[in-house]
């Protein structure tokens, strides 16, 4: 095979800030190179350099930047436009925002053809339908006229991929192509990308997810702070990482194997506050009995979002709630918090009625249960300082709030200097620590964690998960832990509740559910999960079902 792409000593800077520092790699047709790294590592910028879309203020230099025998350095706008879409296809993450929301998907795909003068209108139309069919979108004749939001997440991503491969480009670059997707949908999208590669295109996969990479890549380049720290055969790099950063990334992934261990060994345990004895474990701190919640759908019919869900949560225990989007996880959390009125069933908090009380009487007991959200930024007033955010969450009868705020900051591993900062001046991990401190402020017995680490890089995620584990040991907290990430759920949970379409599919201890799943749905979910075992050494992926499963249908936001 001859080299399709060769990059040597690539440098990209924005003003004084150098974001890519001397990156080199090459790629042959029919092969997949994965560029892995955390946010800010320069992986996306590197990818965009290859299509000349780093933006007007960037300075790009390279010793070699050669694609298909052509020097990409110094191409003019007109020449770049010829390359884009025709020779190199580019797929961004999250098709909901990467497709024009106001245009039917058919026009977006047609656009790629039209821009490169592909055939007549009729020929283009046939090609668009063919592409939709090829990427596995059912009923192309109907879908071609639909808007992105009328499609499911998986179908949208397929449509986006279709627009990128419309002209059979020699190279396809996919920037986090599955990041926002459910695990079963992710498996199908990865399968589609694999097929594109097998048909002879070269594939560059940008990802933070090492498990995805393990499944797809022939070669891996690990990026950190704008440099490639390790590069080589995917199997070798993942099985026997040479660089300590690669090793740390691999260690940080919560999974079946990591249970009971610390994910970020370098960070200290939190041991500053004396341990509070856990409550006697006889009565559950939180109990749900036959919860039902219905929402009115856009068609005017009621949808049962939570359907007869029961669970108990004991003191000091973590109950993991796992399911795909639309499974009712978040609604269950809101019902537990009594933020949403249940249509049936009830919730008991610390053995006493909770969901049935009028809000006025609940208010006095709100301090017993608190919540941590996925995106702390939107749950903070951006103009408030950390100190004010935390002081505001303290019970009104708190003595010496200043001292208590200092205590909370210490508990979550933040420094006194963070006190005066505002949310926007904090990193993602620090923000989530503030969110945790805020949840701890009223000394709750239960904390509902709704996707608390889903927006974080794997190393930061590891630290936050470790912190949550420490806090639980120390304060005897109970967690209702919601996540779509099976690895995170297994790592954190004592017991697990699997939800699908609002119903409890399976429940048991974490090991029971993960190692000996009883229900077909749970088994399918686990099978779809990419694992770190490199390609070839694991059983072949189950072929994605030709008909879309329930998770691939249009999601209706509750």
């Amino acid at each position, binding site marked *: 095979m001859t080299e399709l792409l060769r990059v040597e000593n690539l440098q990209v800077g924005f003003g004084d800030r150098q974001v890519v520092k001397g990156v080199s790699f090459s790629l042959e047709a029919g092969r997949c190179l994965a560029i892995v790294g955390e946010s800010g590592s320069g992986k996306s910028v590197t990818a965009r350099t290859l299509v000349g879309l780093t933006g007007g203020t960037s300075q790009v230099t390279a010793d070699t930047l050669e694609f298909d025998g052509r020097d990409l350095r110094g191409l003019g*706008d007109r020449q770049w436009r010829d390359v884009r879409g*025709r020779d190199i296809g580019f797929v961004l993450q999250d098709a909901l925002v990467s*497709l024009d929301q106001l245009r039917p998907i058919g026009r977006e795909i047609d656009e*790629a053809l039209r821009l490169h003068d592909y055939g007549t209108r009729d020929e283009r139309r046939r090609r668009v339908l063919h592409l939709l069919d090829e990427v596995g979108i059912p009923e192309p004749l109907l879908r071609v006229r639909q808007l992105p939001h009328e499609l499911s997440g998986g179908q949208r991503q397929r449509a986006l991929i279709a627009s*990128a491969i419309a002209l059979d480009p020699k190279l396809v670059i996919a920037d986090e192509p599955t990041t926002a997707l459910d695990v079963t949908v992710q498996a199908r999208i990865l399968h589609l990308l694999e097929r594109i590669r097998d048909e002879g295109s070269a594939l560059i996969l940008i990802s933070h997810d090492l498990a995805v990479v393990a499944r797809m890549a022939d070669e891996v380049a690990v990026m950190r702070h704008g440099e490639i720290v390790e590069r080589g055969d995917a199997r070798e790099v993942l099985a026997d990482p040479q660089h300590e950063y690669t090793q740390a990334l691999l260690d940080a992934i919560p999974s079946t194997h990591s249970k009971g261990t610390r994910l970020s060994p370098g960070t200290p345990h939190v041991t500053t506050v004396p341990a509070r004895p856990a409550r006697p474990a006889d009565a559950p701190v939180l109990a749900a009995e036959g919860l039902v919640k219905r929402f009115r759908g856009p068609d005017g019919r009621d949808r049962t979002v939570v359907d007869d869900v029961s669970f108990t949560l004991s003191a000091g225990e973590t109950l993991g709630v796992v399911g795909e989007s639309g499974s009712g996880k978040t609604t269950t959390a809101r019902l537990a918090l009594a933020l949403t009125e249940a249509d049936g069933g009830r919730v008991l908090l610390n053995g006493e009625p909770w969901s049935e009380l009028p809000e006025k009487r609940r208010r006095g007991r709100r301090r017993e249960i608190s919540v941590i959200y996925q995106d702390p930024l939107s749950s903070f007033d951006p103009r408030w300082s950390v100190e004010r955010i935390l002081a505001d969450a303290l019970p009104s009868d708190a003595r010496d709030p200043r001292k208590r705020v200092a205590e909370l900051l210490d508990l979550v591993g933040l420094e006194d200097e963070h006190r005066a900062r505002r949310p926007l001046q904090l990193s993602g991990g620090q923000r989530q620590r503030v969110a945790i401190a805020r949840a701890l402020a009223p000394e709750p017995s239960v904390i509902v964690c709704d996707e608390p680490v889903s927006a974080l890089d794997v190393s930061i995620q590891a630290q936050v998960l470790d912190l949550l584990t420490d806090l639980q040991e120390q304060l005897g907290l109970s967690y209702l832990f919601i996540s779509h990430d099976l690895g995170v759920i297994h790592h954190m949970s004592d017991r697990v509740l699997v939800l699908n379409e609002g119903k409890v599919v399976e429940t048991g201890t974490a090991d029971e559910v993960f190692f000996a799943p009883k229900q077909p749905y749970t088994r399918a979910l686990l099978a779809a999960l990419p694992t770190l075992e490199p390609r070839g050494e694991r059983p072949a992926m189950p072929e994605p079902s030709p008909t879309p499963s329930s998770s691939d249908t249009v999601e209706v936001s509750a």
Partner: protein
Amino acid sequence: MKSVALKILGALVVLWAAATFTFFVQAALPGDRATLLLNQDSGQIKKRTAAELAPINEEFGFDKPLVQQYADYLGGLATGDLGISYQKKAPVTEIIGEQILPTVWLTLAALVAAWVIALLLTLFTTRRSRVVKTLGSGFETLSAALPHYWLGVILLVVFAIQLSIFPVEGGTSLYGLILPALTLAIPLAGFLGQVTRDEFENVLDEPFITSARARGMGDFEVRWRHALRHAVLPAITLSGWALGALFSGAVIAEIVFARQGIGQILVTAANARDVPVVAGIVMVVAFVYVIANLLVDLAYRIVDPRIQT
């Protein structure tokens, strides 16, 4: 379908509220209406005797109970009767009807011109070189702040009197429409342009714009085919308000350029305290607002097809 019915019901409520308001303002104005009428006719201001007032009261129904008058007024409105002008003794509908078309044309021309100017500014000056960007947004800020009256006089003096490109008194010809329409359009264009520019800047940072560029789309096409459609949504919302404001603000352009139109009647009627005519115009303006907002709704649905679900 349900939402359409609700919208129409809402529009009717607005019209009813406007009618009720104007009616009670008329009734509550200081001074006896019959005396006012007689004084206006004779040009003298004096106290009238009951014998003098009786036929007037009879003719205009001022002697009936207020509730009865209100019911009659609403009934008249429903059948398109806005009452009789005190001054001209002609039906208000007739007086307004004769003059409404020039104002409608002026308003629509101004709105279209404002949109064209605002869109061109956005398309060609947003995210360009520093100089172009500053010129574009500077023009918008400046023009949004221009008073109509001053702008109209300047346009008149420069283009009609000094350069003689346009007629000083355009009458109702298309050519004569240009300067008055620009008088109204330029400040509105600045305003719409500012709103659209902000949105346009945000849209240009969206991932779907990168997607389009990655397909090989050129900069102008990205702006024209993708970004603009997203960026005009806030300005469309404002256009409902703008259309109504243009209609009631047309009076200044009509006076400066001596055009026929509702504005002229409004000024004359207001000066003469010809209350039914003023009230009639208020009703027409309310009606224009209602129609404008329904049109905005429609336009919004066309530009943003997501709403239909």
